[in-house]
């Protein structure tokens, strides 16, 4: 792949987004904006209890309510359960416990919000009115809610087959080497972390419309998905047994995902199944309250970590013990989050020679937990960067120096970590230095004094992080338990008059693929960006696709497009050689023009395109007409973006309020196609990281299992006045194994930022003797920590 032509719309240019006009004028088409002829509306009656037996469902009265078309319950449901896409094996070799997950509960409800009945009516209001007439008798049983307590003997059991609520008990690394290193350590630092449960809260609530064509027997599902082909595969093959050829899945404009729209949800299967039953389209739209109860939640780990160091502060070994909450069922990718997306990152940016981690996955009577922006990597980064910070405080080594001292050296790449991954490239020293300078780390003392004069406490915090993304090499993830390949497809259709449609298996739900991918192709084929359209999100249009998550779209999906473009250019050269009566070897392609090297003969790309479709003068015995190519790209490795985030905060000690004054993010995301879009991704990720650090937490009542933060009245979403302006810097080392050199940008903001924020808060509170705080550092928590420290000092 060339560096790019330097064109104003090519690689490296901040091209304004092609998709914006429709979004800015209200013409975006999200799932809930779609209405099918003859459409009915579904409302889902959900469990009010965290754990109960369903004794009886009486829907006779509801069935007679105005407008009701059908009422369906678990007894009516005769299809399969929702599958899990990743299998983990425990230490003892036994496979994880995989309980059934039917879209409608059969005999027991296992979390508040579990699906009990599907009510289909002529209008949404009628369906909801009728739902109130359904009489469900439950026999409540004691739920288990606390992750800390769920694996203790005597805890209530979510599933009888999962003893002590344990789904699996997994480990990675060399325990003996780690134990040996700890035995000779000069200093050991220990930390306990709660990485709290978050609720993703894409602004568009989930929605799904099932449609059934009586003439062809074809089903169509319109859904709010990040990966329509994955939904087609999972729902078609495992749940409803509909062959791909009879099932179309469309994910139109999608209003944000952040992971929560990767998974195959019960409602998708229910509307599709029900559409076949009532032979009319069935539409379900989540309201926000339902979203809080039923979207897959994120994070929710408890970690204990220990770091062994020599007398100079060199890291010798790391030992980690993690408990990860799965919720009541296994969501699509839940098992891989605390294991292969979390524990394999424990080396971070450091050359720690020995690492051992144990991870227990635990069922509780709560909503399912799965990937949320960063997925496992924020948890690991938070644990590491809090631990390293604490080690610096304990040993008296400067907190920047301790990091620098332990960084993987620039000349050590490719670097094999003790926990499976091999990093291809990186330069953590440069991102650190740039960030320190940009954030004026050196000038903090003066600024602390200024704050002190106002009665405030200022602090600065740092995080040096790394993540693995560009998900993923299929053979590698297959050996780790993935039940699918994770390649991507790109298809380029050059039309007769030279415009181009690019079909990608990735899905854009805010990332701006329609622009970035158009830039790639416009640059590569030397055609105006206006002539390139990017199509995604429809299984009937796109050959195949694994979708968008794990910061993979450019590194994997973009690489597939580049491969397809290479094929287009190869074929075009042969056509051009024919037209110019030259040998293919002598034909060069640059800026949209084919030339014969050393001559003034040239043919523009448009002429080649036309010739391919109007093959009057064409090498027809050697080449087929037409100009359309498809490529599947399976990456050779993960990609490894990394960098340094620095946060500066001011704490009001009287109220506990933390104000984020400055945030600096210097990242190495590999090759950047559109800097404006890449920066925007970092801004958004950082805001979600600040959200986790200071504002957001899902809380369940530990006795009843009721969600206490079930709306924006209690779940604190970051708003404009919670987030500072964010300074973004970039220091690029290229990915060495994909044709773009791209690493990925979607998640870095959310991965690097939370420990920078908390380390800043703890730096501010250091003079008061506060040594630890649990996220989110809400005003109330900070105030309590100050009071506790004051009492201890008395």
């Amino acid at each position, binding site marked *: 792949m060339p560096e790019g032509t330097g064109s104003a719309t090519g690689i490296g240019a901040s091209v304004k987004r092609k998709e914006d006009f429709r979004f800015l004028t209200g013409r975006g088409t999200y799932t809930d904006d779609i209405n099918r002829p003859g459409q009915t509306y579904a409302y889902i009656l959900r469990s009010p209890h965290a754990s109960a037996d369903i004794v009886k469902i009486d829907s006779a009265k509801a069935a007679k309510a105005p407008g009701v078309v059908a009422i369906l319950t678990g007894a009516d449901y005769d299809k399969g359960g929702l599958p899990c896409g990743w299998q983990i094996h425990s230490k003892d070799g036994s496979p994880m416990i995989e309980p059934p997950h039917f879209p409608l509960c059969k005999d027991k409800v296992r979390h508040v919000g579990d699906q009990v009945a599907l009510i289909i009516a002529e209008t949404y*209001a009628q369906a909801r*009115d009728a739902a*109130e007439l359904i009489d469900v008798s439950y026999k409540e049983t004691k739920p288990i809610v606390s992750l800390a307590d769920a694996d203790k003997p005597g805890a209530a059991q979510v599933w009888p087959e999962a003893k002590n609520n344990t789904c699996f008990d997994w480990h990675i690394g060399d325990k003996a080497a780690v134990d040996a290193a700890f035995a000779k350590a000069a200093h050991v630092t220990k930390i306990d972390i709660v990485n709290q449960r978050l609720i993703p809260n894409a602004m568009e609530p989930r929605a799904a419309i099932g449609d059934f064509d009586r003439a062809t027997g074809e089903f169509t599902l319109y859904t709010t998905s990040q990966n329509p082909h994955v939904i087609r595969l999972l729902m078609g093959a495992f749940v409803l047994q509909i062959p791909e050829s009879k099932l179309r899945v469309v994910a139109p404009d999608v209003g944000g995902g952040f992971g929560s729209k990767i998974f195959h949800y019960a409602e998708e299967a229910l509307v599709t199944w029900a559409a076949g039953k009532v032979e009319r389209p069935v539409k379900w739209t989540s309201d926000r*309250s339902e979203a809080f109860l039923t979207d897959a939640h994120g994070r929710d780990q408890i970690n204990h970590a220990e770091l062994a160091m020599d007398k100079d502060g060199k890291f010798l070994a790391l030992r980690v013990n993690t408990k990860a909450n799965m919720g009541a069922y296994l969501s699509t990718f839940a098992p891989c989050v605390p294991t292969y997306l979390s524990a394999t990152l424990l080396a971070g940016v450091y050359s720690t020679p020995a690492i051992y981690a144990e991870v227990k996955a635990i069922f509780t009577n709560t909503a399912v937990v799965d990937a949320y922006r960063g997925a496992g990597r924020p948890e690991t980064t938070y644990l590491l960067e809090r631990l390293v910070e604490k080690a610096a405080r304990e040993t008296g080594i400067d907190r920047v120096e301790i990091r620098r001292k332990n960084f993987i050296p620039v000349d050590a790449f490719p670097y094999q970590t003790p926990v499976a991954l091999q990093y291809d490239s990186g330069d953590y020293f440069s991102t650190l230095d740039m960030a320190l300078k940009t954030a004026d780390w050196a000038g903090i003392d003066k600024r602390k004094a200024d704050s002190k004069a106002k009665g405030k406490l200022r602090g600065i915090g740092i995080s040096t992080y790394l993540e693995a993304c560009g998900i993923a090499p299929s053979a590698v993830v297959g050996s780790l338990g993935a039940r699918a390949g994770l390649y991507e497809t790109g298809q380029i259709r050059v039309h007769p008059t030279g415009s181009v449609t690019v079909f990608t298996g990735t899905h854009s739900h805010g990332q701006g693929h329609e622009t970035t991918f158009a830039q790639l192709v416009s640059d590569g084929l030397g055609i105006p960006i206006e002539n390139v359209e990017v199509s995604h999100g429809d299984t009937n249009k796109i050959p195949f696709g694994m979708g968008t998550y794990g910061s993979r779209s450019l590194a994997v999906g973009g690489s597939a497009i580049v491969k397809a473009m290479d094929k287009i250019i190869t074929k075009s050269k042969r056509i051009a050689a024919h037209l110019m009566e030259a040998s293919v070897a002598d034909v060069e392609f640059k800026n949209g023009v084919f030339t014969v090297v050393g001559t003034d003969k040239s043919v523009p790309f448009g002429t080649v395109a036309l010739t391919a479709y109007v093959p009057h003068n064409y090498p027809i015995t050697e080449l087929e007409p037409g100009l359309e190519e498809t490529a599947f790209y399976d990456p050779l490795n993960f990609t490894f973006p990394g960098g340094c985030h620095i946060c500066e905060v001011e704490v009001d000690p*009287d*109220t*506990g309020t933390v104000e984020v004054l400055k945030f600096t993010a210097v990242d190495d995301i590999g090759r950047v196609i559109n800097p404006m879009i890449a920066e925007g991704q970092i801004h958004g990720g950082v805001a979600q990281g600040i959200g986790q650090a200071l*504002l957001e937490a899902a*809380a369940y009542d530990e006795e009843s299992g009721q969600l*206490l*933060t079930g709306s*924006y*009245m*209690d*779940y*604190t*979403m970051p708003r404009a006045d919670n987030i500072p302006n964010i300074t973004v810097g970039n220091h690029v080392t290229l990915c060495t194994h994909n044709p773009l050199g791209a690493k990925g940008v979607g998640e870095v903001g959310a991965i690097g930022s939370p420990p920078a924020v908390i380390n800043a808060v703890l730096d501010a509170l250091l003079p008061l003797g506060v040594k630890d705080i649990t996220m989110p550092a*809400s*005003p*109330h928590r900070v*105030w*309590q920590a100050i*009071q506790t420290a004051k009492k201890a000092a008395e």
Partner: protein
Amino acid sequence: MHNFAFHRPTSVADAAKAIGAASDGKFVAGGQTLLPTLRQRLAEPSDMIDLSAIAELKGIKVEGDGITIGAATTHTEVANSADVKKTIPALAHLASLIGDHQVRQRGTIGGSIANNDPAADYPAAVLGLGATIRTNKREIKADDFFKGMFETDLAEGEIITAVHFPKPEKAGYEKFRQPASRFALVGVFVAKTGGGIRVAVTGAGPGVFRSKELEAALGGNFTADAAKGVKISANGLNGDLHGSPEYRASLVSTLAARATAAAS
């Protein structure tokens, strides 16, 4: 929400008639708190009587020693009113802190105080300034109006028509937002009036209340330090995810100090 019959009277008299005729009628003005409640299906009124088309309920006028605000006047109108800013700047400031930009352009003072949400802002000003609530039947002193969580002295079908605020010598309002909802976790209104110091606290307890301790402390010495030194008891204060009773108690004196310092 459940369905209901909708009425849009253009006079207070017609509104009173409409509610009288309804089996379980409810008034709606801006509806900013009521409609979310109905959407959650937490209430099921038979009839909704919309007060927003009644001209006589709207407007702000300087009256005697203070200012009178029609019940259907929006928070934005109060926050931006030159008369309010001049007469009682703390009241305009308080109105500018309610809800958010859009909520302030719909929500009304009458709706807010009739609802008497324990975390609403307006009750603090009404009680803190010793305002008078005027209804279609009578006048009610602020000290007699608020009766605890979501309860007021209003009789069934009684309509607030206006609130009269006497001009204080000085007043200030300080709000500490519940981080998620942006309602008052604690809000403190302090006023130095001809009749003495009044300090009204919202958000902290089951309903707006006057703090005798703060009033006593500020009575002798109307300074931030005097307020800051008052230790508020956490007994009976609210505790939830966003703040323990002790935290709220601490905020009461902190905010009282800040409101006193800002009072004008």
